[in-house]
């Protein structure tokens, strides 16, 4: 058990409980917090959440697996999404994907041995005007091609914070 993380999660949950008072509305923001703190929905985090929210781990997972942006497996420090929907695909999204696979030498949803990167294809994220689009740690990256993706891998810190923080309304 990672006490620091547990402590942090508990504090975050306390704050959330003040905002989301009714029913199940707290589940999604709370799941986001777990993912921010642990990098993915870890068993430990989910168990704490389940206890605090008086439900069960399985129920939380049923919600979480419905959404693309929640991870039930560990991710790298930088997690990259590449859109492969129509507009992006027509602008050679799969070349970008292949390039990523080549550089990182891991398949979709696997983590590089140094724990730095993982990547995943997603569906349209509404940035069709700047294809190929994607995210790195939830910061958007646009107009991707075979070349600038290399730069992103080399200097990820220029493009994204190390930790995602989703602003919740």
């Amino acid at each position: 058990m990672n006490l620091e993380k547990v402590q942090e999660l508990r504090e975050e949950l306390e704050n959330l409980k003040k905002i989301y008072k009714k029913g199940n509305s707290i589940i999604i923001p709370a799941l986001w917090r777990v993912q921010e703190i642990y990098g993915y929905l870890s068993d430990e985090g989910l168990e704490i959440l389940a206890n605090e929210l008086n439900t069960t781990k399985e129920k939380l997972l049923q919600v979480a697996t419905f959404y693309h942006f929640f991870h039930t497996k560990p991710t790298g420090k930088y997690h990259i999404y590449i859109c492969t929907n129509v507009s992006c695909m027509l602008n050679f999204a799969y070349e970008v994907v292949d390039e990523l696979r080549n550089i990182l030498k891991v398949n979709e949803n696997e983590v590089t041995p140094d724990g730095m990167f993982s990547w995943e294809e997603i569906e349209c994220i509404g940035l069709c005007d700047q294809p190929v689009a994607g995210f790195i740690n939830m910061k958007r990256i646009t107009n991707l091609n075979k070349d600038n993706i290399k730069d992103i891998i080399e200097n990820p810190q220029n493009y994204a914070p190390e930790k995602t923080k989703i602003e919740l309304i």
Partner: protein
Amino acid sequence: MPKIVIDKKEYEFKDGETILEVAWRNNIFIPVFCYHPKMPYVAACRICNVEVRISNSTRIMPACATLCQENMEIITNSNVIKNDIQKGVLELLLLNHPLDCPTCDAGGECDLQELTLRFGSDRSRYEFPKREFERKNFSPFLDLYPNRCIECDRCSRFFHLIGGGTEWGTYNRGWYEVFGVWKKEIIENEFSGNMWEICPLGAINDGSYKFKARPWEIESIESIAPDDSIGSNIYVDIRKKYPKSRGPFEIGGRRTNLFKVYRITSRDNPKVNDYWLSDRERYSYSWINANNRIAYPTIKENGTYRSVNWEYILDAIYSDIKDVNSEEVALITSARSSNESAYLSKILFKEILFTENVGFSEIGEDAIEEVFGYSISNATISDIDDAKNIIIFGDIKNSFPILGIRLIRSSRNGANIFVYNYYKERYILENWAKGIIFHPYEIEKVAYELSLKVKNNEFRGKTVLILPDNLPYRVLRNLLIASIYHDNAKVLILRTKPNKQGFIDVGFKDKSIYEIIEKANLGKIKVLFLWHTDLLLEYPNRSEIESALSKIPIVIYISPFADYSIKYAKYILPETTIFEEDGSRTNTEGRVQIHKQALLNYEDSMPSWWIFKGLIKRFGISLKIDSIEDIRKLMKKEIYYYSEVDFDKRPRYRNYPPFIPSIRKLIKYYEYDLAKYPMRYKNLKLIEPEAKEVKPLVILSPHIYKSSYYASRCEIFYSYIKPYIRTIEANSKTIASLSIDEKFKLEDEEFSIVVNENVVDNVLIYRPLFFDSKINLYLNKYGSREI
């Protein structure tokens, strides 16, 4: 009444009714997949879509989830619905379906097959690879094929809303949506078997029925689950007596498939099991062909056994017992036979042999009769549904699992449930109920305090007390007395022997079996009838029982199974079991339920009423009984309580579409009569509790699959119970104070210790396997022992 128009005809509806309900009631059979009459709707499949015209705009809406409104006009058979919607939905549902009907156990009773044939198109335009899931098995009871699933969500809905479980769920989304269990080996919910029955196709199949038969070769016979006294209604599925398809298979000149139960399915009785079954009721049937069933009447002479015919053995028994004094005859039974058998045995023992020595259980004293005037509950099982407060003593999950469905339902409806026990069981741990945990020696005190509360009407609203009948005499008495002070407090007595109520109704009075054992030990019993029971398996304090049995010269052992006490028997009479005989049983609330013969008698075994009839005849009394109907007629005449009971109750029918197999099962439902009981409440005083010092205690406790006489013989439960691992559960405080660490020794037996923080201090729990509880030797008659 408001009206809607369906297919140009007007129909009335009640507020809150859906289009589907109104349509079905009026014989307009809209097809469904995800809708199930016993569960809330979700509108997941859309096969039920209809055109709804309201204030000049037409929309396509799911009939199962749209409430009726005035001025609604509904069209169920337009071209759009038939060609676009129904065909389209079916084509979509079948996109990923593997179409493996020839190897699927649901083939023949599959909603998808039937509805595709009726409403679907004969070809698919899809030409890409199909989605595939890895096949995993989470349970010995279920056989899972996720590729076939159509995501109707019936299983998850059942599991969460009705079974109260959480681990089963629907994970992921869209194309990848799959049901199942997340990172777990085995499903622990005791209602999981219902999922295969409500799954509209073969995505979830019955694990025990795998590749055994086809639905059209099977005949369903009405029966009653024999494991507990709730008497859930079941169908016993057997091979059709005269199959037109394959068979019959003959092995050794005997058609084996006539002696086999293929599976058990649920039968709807809204007042009792409400269509659902627990796994213990559903999967406990392989005992029917257990290898220790007795085949022939047998006599033991000079230490050797000899099979004889029925006439000979009955003559021999008669000549042995005819001159014995009435005080020297005893009957011990566990009340597992039908009312009809009970009635004839009552004639034999009460009117011919005049014996008082009849025992069913450990306790004997009947507080219920003392307080209520007659030994019967004054609440019914369905009273649980609208109760505000439910007070339970003991463990429901492990002893009367099917009641759990109602408890979960009323807990969801806002009832307060309180469970009194010495460890926290499922309903406390999962927050369905509030737990009051105490040491067994404090039970009198705790019950007394509760009685005062009930008496002073501190629980507002309708209160139901659920009490097993083997509670200590003073505890039961106090609680019963308290309950009669208020009209809104009722008591549901749970009989711990399956048909004990029936045995009481025909005129037996329970006496503690230990009283009879004591007498036998003094040499005062010459003839003992052991009927459908095995003392050495069922009761603690084995050494005393063994010495008593060895002192009785004539033990007559009537039972389907050759268990331990058979070695003391002089006469061994094979009895048929519930699935092999017609009869009726009275359940714990006094409902007389009928079961029919499904299988042929096992070898030479006979129903026990036939055996008693033979003995009665030898005493020179002819009863003019040829069949079970004659006994019923006699019972109706002689037993006041049953005078208005209809033993020939017909099922009732609902208007559901006959062409959807999973719904077709619900068309018929049964409602059996309650017997009529006189209640004469007596105003007695509460007895003050006796203080008893709390001491460390080893205590026997039930386990759902171990403690039933029948279920413990079935191998299918072994993946849950690991029969030969002996463990004792206790909390860490007790373990520390007794300074035992890994092993616990009692006399010469060793048990490994399992830490279970849910057990109260100073209690060590042992869950005996019905058949091998050697620990019984060291326990006193109430199943506990101080250390």
